[in-house]
């Protein structure tokens, strides 16, 4: 299993990462690449840039945990996750997920699963610079429900608190 997880300030090269994942192999039949890009607007208003804050150490661990979950769930032959932090301008890439498998359904499902989890569980926070100043992006209920659909049924909780 070829697994790469990286957090970095600098841009990444999606094509290079895909070549590193698949190069020289002939058992891979399907490669899905997701690239998340910084848009020039947020909530209908133009933005100058966004800044991504993260929790070093925890971010890597959370991503690794979800990559392990994906590997346990689908017959994958390779996974790459790269997430940038720091200041990112519109048009620049933010996040890269690449999944490789012998068949396409596994590659698609694992890439979607990883993106849904990155959106809701990986400790990153986006701040946008708008004309009126800086503001923190609010979490979306639609992202929570996208992540929910991957949950396995849980045993009933014994404690009622929280």
């Amino acid at each position, binding site marked *: 299993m070829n697994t790469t997880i990286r957090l970095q300030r600098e841009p990444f090269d999606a094509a290079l990462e895909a070549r590193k994942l698949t190069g020289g192999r002939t058992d891979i039949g399907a490669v899905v690449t997701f690239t*998340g890009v910084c848009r020039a607007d947020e909530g209908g208003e133009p933005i100058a840039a966004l800044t*991504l*804050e*993260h*929790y070093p*150490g*925890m*971010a890597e*661990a*959370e991503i690794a945990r979800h990559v392990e979950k994906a590997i346990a769930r689908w017959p994958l032959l390779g996974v790459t996750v790269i*997430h940038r932090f720091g200041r990112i301008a519109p048009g620049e890439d*933010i*996040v890269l997920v690449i999944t490789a498998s012998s068949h396409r359904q596994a590659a698609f499902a694992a890439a979607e699963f990883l*993106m849904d989890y*990155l*959106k*809701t*569980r*990986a*400790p*990153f*926070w*986006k*701040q946008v610079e708008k004309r009126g100043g800086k503001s*923190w*992006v*609010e*979490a979306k209920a639609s*992202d929570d429900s996208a992540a929910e659909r991957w949950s396995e049924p849980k045993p009933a909780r014994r*404690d009622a*608190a*929280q």
Partner: protein
Amino acid sequence: MKLRYFAWVRERIGKAEEDLDPPASVATVADLVAWLAQQGEGYAYAFENPNVIRAAIDKSHVHADARIAGAGEVALFPPMTGG
């Protein structure tokens, strides 16, 4: 106990981390948030709505009812917006 704050929790409190020793009555993450909210104006603002606060103990997500005894590092932050 080391406390770490991120995003607007960090901004409102005015620091990214600190070492604090909460009293023994502070048993859970929810207790900790309620106690911190009384430590000054910035804290009160950061924790004005405890329901939106997310927490991690030693870099793992926990619920508000998680016990903090033995924790090396407790992090408090808003819902995440990565990806």
